[in-house]
């Protein structure tokens, strides 16, 4: 049932031009510019890692977070969620089916842009860690999307509710990439997506110890758990009466 819902959801995303553009063209366009200008980042504290962190955050925020919040709010507003719940499909299957397309779209985009960057530059130093950081970032954005969808009334309202966690992580990725790793490391790691951004930079540049990288995973896991708890409390399947 999850696959059936996911297939239908993918069709709906593809047929909705504004969602399709914001989920694919904008993050891919941004990534293309960063890859094209990669040599300009070599003197940055994070080096090409700046481009890696920025691309990964842009794709996961725009391709997954914003898309998932917008589509969940839209499906709720049109009572599509209620109709899905009128079938034999369970809640977990329904949610998994609805978020699967933006997750897969984002994962494919990440693979493409990082693959292209790897082909035209040196790196990544630690491909496995890069994959782990990508998966953690996607999991974080998915959990944050579910939590944000709980307080979002409509697709139009999503333009407001997604703003903090769209601009915040993108700005944070730039801050981390443009400043020394010694500058406010705890604050950077504790802000949502800060730790995964640092992790992806470490994975590309290969200049951090294993213990440091493992430590960077903890804040992300904490944010995922907190977001899922908020989602469990706030998420509703029908428009509020």
């Amino acid at each position: 049932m999850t696959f059936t819902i996911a297939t239908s959801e993918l069709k709906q995303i593809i047929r909705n031009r504004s969602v399709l553009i914001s989920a694919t063209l904008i993050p891919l366009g941004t990534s293309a510019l960063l890859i094209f200008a990669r040599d300009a980042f070599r003197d940055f504290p994070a080096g090409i890692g700046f481009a890696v962190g920025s691309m990964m955050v842009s794709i996961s925020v725009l391709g997954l977070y914003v898309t998932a919040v917008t589509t969940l709010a839209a499906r709720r507003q049109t009572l599509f969620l209620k109709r899905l719940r009128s079938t034999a499909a369970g809640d977990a299957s329904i949610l998994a089916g609805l978020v699967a397309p933006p997750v897969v779209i984002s994962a494919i985009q990440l693979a493409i842009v990082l693959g292209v960057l790897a082909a035209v530059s040196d790196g990544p130093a630690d491909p496995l860690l890069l994959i782990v950081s990508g998966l953690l970032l996607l999991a974080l954005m998915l959990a944050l999307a579910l939590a944000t969808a709980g307080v979002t009334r409509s697709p139009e309202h999503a333009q407001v509710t997604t703003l903090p966690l769209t601009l915040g992580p993108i700005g944070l990725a730039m801050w981390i990439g443009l400043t020394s790793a010694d500058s406010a490391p705890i604050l950077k790691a504790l802000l949502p997506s800060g730790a995964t951004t640092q992790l992806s930079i470490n994975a590309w540049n290969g200049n951090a110890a294993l213990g440091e990288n493992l430590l960077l995973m903890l804040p992300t896991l904490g944010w995922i758990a907190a977001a899922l708890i908020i989602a469990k409390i706030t998420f509703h399947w029908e428009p509020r009466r």
Partner: protein
Amino acid sequence: MHPVIEIDRLSVRYGGFWAVRELSLTVAQGELYALLGTNGAGKTSTLESLEGHRPATGGSVRVFGRDPRQRRAVRRRTGIMLQNGGFSPELSALESIELFGSLSGRKDDAARILDVVGLGDRARTAVAQLSGGEQRRLDFATAVWGRPELIILDEPTTGLDVNARDDLWSVVDALRSEGTTFLLTTHYLEEAQQHADRIGLTHGGRLRSEGTVHEITRTLPARISFTLAIGATAPSGAERLPDGGFVIRTAQLQSELHALLEWAADNRVKLQGLEAGSPRLDDVLRSIAKEEDSQPGVSR
């Protein structure tokens, strides 16, 4: 054998507002039960509890002997026509019926179902391009997909033209002949009067009356209504209505009508717009609403 639907003292509350209070009813296999009432009577909340969408504040709801929130077990046997909405404007009618049909856990043929509801030639049309009536027919198609044992219809004919309503009822009648059980809400009381085996009348969240049409309507007197020329004297027993007409309420329709016609002939009075008949469901519903609204201190 369990009844298909068992509702025992169901209560549903939103904040401080009781939408449903202590409502009990059962629906037997093969029966068509119509739950009727005024707006805000608690019909939709009752249906949503039955569908597993709305948790009960009190009481219990069983469908096929199970909690309706056990979706996988109950929904395979239940078709649901929602009151409105729920289709994606980006999908076609065919894609929509295929999606919700396959998720129902029952098997059927999408082209056949669309033909049954008269949407065969609109299969490739996006839902956004369908008229309101066509979307209601698509909704009905999802409910009857795979011939479920129980079909819940929430105001199924709202927005349908006369032909589409007749077509819908012919499908319902055909399924009933195969033993399908129906629970229906509608504001078209004449449809319930014509098709339902039993009727429950709700008002203020409570079930006020239940039975066959005959059992419910016999609680009220029959009525004879007419108007008279200006200045004419009304017969004794006639009650003047606010619109200037007259009504005679009686338990002896035939003899009272005979007496009225004799009086008119003797007095050479023309009875304009003469109508006589048994009470209708809407008379009973109005009577129930009027009775409750006249009782001070009744609150929800």
